[in-house]
């Protein structure tokens, strides 16, 4: 009872991880808790997975090079039991990264979800639905963009860095120059539709087995999202790309109107699982909460509802009074005098027989 009252009083930003947790638990996902450190070797070969940001390292006992965890997904993959058919996990962790350029060290609060063994239409829809619902918890104006790395591989064959940059930047001119097809460049850069189940606009790009398979997958997903009533905030948009060495299927990027950059990113990373020698398929996403702290910052006017000044009063009586008020749902800060600069809606001075 008391805890419930306190949770309601929390600022919106502090409530987010709790609400996300409640959402994921309502789908039966299990919380995954991990250590802050990992051996550097875990990351060395998969640096590109970490979007080019640096890793903070230190020397551990016995001279082993250790890293402050820059990412959670890799650790989860590493610990997946190859015998387990399915695992549904979520986490809320702080990760540490070094910003490219100025080398600034940052601690980023991250909540994420991983579905190991997600291999059918249902599981894919479930993860996308959870991503969409997570975004809606953050802001009523939200958009989830969905792309497909397999579809792009089918269209282009090899996906060079320049090609992916041009796609990610919706840069028609650059894309046309790279692929030598202005019409295709125009289509891929403008393509952005609500996932009405037919995906007519994509049909023209289906040219081979890979694109056909990806097209069917997207169509099924779109149909399920429409049926779930979520199509309003979801777009098929091929500027949504991610490292093809790791991501091989759908990729997601989520935006909210209050934040200037994407707050959610993820996708299907079966290729990443293979790199770690795991047989399962996998799908997941992460939400960068750290970036949102400033967005949702609400300066609080008061430190507490009531400032209880106990002065020379009997401490037992003061403790009792404070507890009584808390039981009524007020937040109570007790102080010996009024000199602390505490901001309260109401001040009660014990033994003074009056409320100031």
């Amino acid at each position, binding site marked *: 009872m008391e805890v419930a009252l306190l949770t309601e009083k929390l600022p919106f930003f502090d409530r987010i991880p709790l609400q996300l947790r409640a959402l994921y638990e309502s789908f039966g996902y299990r919380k995954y808790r991990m250590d802050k450190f990992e051996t550097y070797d875990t990351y060395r070969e998969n640096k590109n997975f970490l979007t080019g940001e640096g890793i903070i390292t230190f020397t551990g006992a016995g001279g082993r090079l250790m890293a402050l965890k820059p990412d959670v997904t890799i650790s989860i993959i590493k610990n997946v039991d190859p015998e387990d058919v399915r695992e549904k996990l979520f986490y809320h962790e702080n990760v540490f990264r070094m910003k490219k350029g100025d080398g600034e060290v940052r601690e980023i609060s991250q909540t994420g979800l991983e579905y190991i063994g997600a291999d059918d239409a249902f599981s894919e829809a479930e993860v996308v639905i959870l991503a969409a619902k997570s975004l809606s918890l953050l802001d009523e104006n939200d958009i989830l963009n969905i792309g497909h790395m397999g579809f792009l591989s089918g269209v282009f064959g090899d996906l060079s860095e320049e090609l992916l940059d041009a796609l990610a930047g919706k840069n028609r001119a650059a894309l046309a120059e790279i692929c030598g097809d202005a019409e295709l460049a125009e289509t891929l850069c403008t393509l952005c539709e609500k996932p009405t189940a037919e995906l007519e606009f994509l049909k023209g790009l289906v040219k081979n087995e890979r694109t056909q398979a990806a097209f069917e997958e997207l169509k099924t997903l779109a149909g399920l999202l429409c049926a779930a009533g979520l199509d309003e905030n979801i*777009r098929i948009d091929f500027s949504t790309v991610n490292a093809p060495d790791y991501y091989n299927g759908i990729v997601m990027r989520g935006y909210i109107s209050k934040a200037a*950059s994407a707050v959610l990113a993820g996708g299907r990373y079966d290729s990443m699982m293979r790199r770690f020698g795991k047989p399962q398929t996998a799908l997941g996403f992460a939400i960068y909460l750290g970036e949102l702290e400033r967005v949702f910052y609400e300066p609080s006017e008061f430190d507490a509802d009531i400032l209880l000044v106990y002065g020379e009063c009997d401490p037992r009586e003061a403790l009792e009074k404070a507890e009584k008020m808390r039981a009524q749902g007020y937040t109570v800060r007790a102080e010996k005098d009024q000199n602390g600069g505490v901001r309260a809606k109401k001040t009660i001075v014990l033994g003074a027989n009056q409320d100031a």
Partner: protein
Amino acid sequence: MLNIALPKGRLGDQVYDKFQKLGLGCSGMDGSDRRLVFENPEAGVRYLLVKPSDVAVYVVHGAADIGVVGKDVLLETEPDVYELCDLGIGKCRIVIAAKNGFKEDTSVPLRVATKYPHVTAHYYADLNRRIELIKLNGSIELAPVTGLSDVISDIVETGTTLKENNLSVLETIAFSSARLIANKSAYQFKREMIDGIRDRMEQLR
């Protein structure tokens, strides 16, 4: 309201002309008014006049929804934005230039003065050439003349400044022109208006 970051100066004036042709003009912006923010509530636009190299910063952080910036700045800073179209104005090149008659000594690292350290380092790394970068903020042409550097990597429009300082172009690294860019998040929520501006800008070309 759509916030538009424009570069102060000559390029900014040309770009603003284009916005005016789209019916997105703003009173006071063409004259001597020294304000940095101009608003046209009827058209739903607000212009922010900023230093050319800062346009992308405003857009990346969402202080502006869209902006116009030289490709040279985009190459140098690689901001995470949508690059929606080439406005076809402000055309120039980033070149390597040196004193007339300069002969490169490949037995020592090449000293390069530039405003574009990232682009320049990338260019020489591709050539496997060892260099010493000297970052300057202006009057780059002075560097080889005074012996501060062997060559410079700088923006050239007509080449007159180079000529007047007895410098000549050795190599072109990149071509630049003004680009319309958009904040990735703002684009999701103001898509119609931004795409409308892009389409009409393309027609103006």
